[in-house]
C-alpha cells in the first residue's frame, strides 16, 4: 500500500480538498448538513448539475436568438444596452 502511495503524485488530501471545493459550488451546498456527502453522491450530483446548466444555456440561447431577431440594430435600445455593458 505504501509503495502505491509513493508512486501516486497526488495525495488523498488534495483530492479531498478538490472535492470539497467542488461541493461548495453545487446548489446542495446551501442545505449542507456537515460533510456527510459521499464522493459518489457528489459526483452524481455534479453530473446532473452540469446537465441542467447546459439545458439552461440552451434555453437562454434560443431566447436570445429570438430576441435578437426582433431587435433592430440601430434602435436606441441597442445603444442603451451597449452602454450599460461597457
Amino acid at each position, binding site marked *: 500500500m505504501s509503495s502505491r502511495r509513493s508512486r501516486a503524485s497526488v495525495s488523498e488530501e488534495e483530492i479531498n480538498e478538490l472535492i470539497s471545493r467542488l461541493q461548495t459550488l453545487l446548489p446542495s451546498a446551501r442545505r449542507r448538513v456537515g460533510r456527510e456527502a459521499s464522493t*459518489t453522491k457528489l459526483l452524481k450530483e455534479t453530473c446532473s448539475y452540469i446537465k441542467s446548466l447546459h439545458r439552461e444555456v440552451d434555453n437562454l440561447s434560443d431566447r436570445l436568438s429570438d430576441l435578437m431577431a426582433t431587435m433592430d440594430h440601430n434602435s436606441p435600445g441597442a445603444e442603451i444596452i451597449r452602454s450599460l455593458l461597457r
Partner: protein
Amino acid sequence: MASTSSSTPAAEVEVEERCRKRKRAARAAEPAAPAQPSKWRTRREHEIYSSKLLEAIRVVRAGPSAAAGAAAPAPPRGRAVGEAADRELAVAARGRTHWSRAILASRRRRLQAAHRARLRAPASPPSRHDAAAASASAASASAAAAKGTATPPLARKAKVLGRLVPGCRKLSFPTLLAETTDYIAALQMQVRAMTALAEALSAVSATSSPGAGSSSSSSPL
C-alpha cells in the same frame, strides 16, 4: 525558511512538488495558480463576457452564411448563439483549462473542415484523426494512472463526468475534479450573463414596441 512539517520524505516530496508547480506557473507569466474558480464570480469578468457575447450574437445574426460558408446551413440560430456563448466563455478562460482549449480546438477543427470541404475534396477526416490520436496517446498514460487514484465505482461516475466536461474524457481523477470545478463556475457565470442579457433585451423590445401583444415577462422573477 524553516519548515515545521514532519520529517517524512513523502511530505517533503509533496511540498517540493507544490513549490515546483508554483514556480512553473510563475514562469509561465500567469499571475494566478491553475484556474481559480473564484474569478468567474467577479463583476469585471461578467461585464467583459456580456459585452463580448453581445457582439458575438450580433455577428451571428448578421450573417451565418458568411462565416460558415454555407457548408453548415443547418445550425439553427439558437444553437449558433449557444456556440458563440461557449466560445466566448472558452476565450475568457485564457487557455488555462483543458475544457476551454477543447472548445476552441473543436470549433477550429470544424471551421477548417468546412473551409476545406468548400475548396476541394474533403481532407478533413485525417486531420481530425490526427488530433484525436495525438490526444489519445498522450492521455492513455494518465488514464492508467487514474485507475490508481479512483476506485471502480468512482471511476464510472468520473467517466460520465469526463464526457460532460469538454475535452476531459481521459484526464486523471484530480485533474478532472479541478477542471469540473472551473467549468461549473464558468457555466454559472455564463447563465448569469445570458439571463441578464435576455432580461435587458426583452425589456428593451417591450418598451420599443408598445402594443405589440402581450409580453409576459414584464415583471422580474
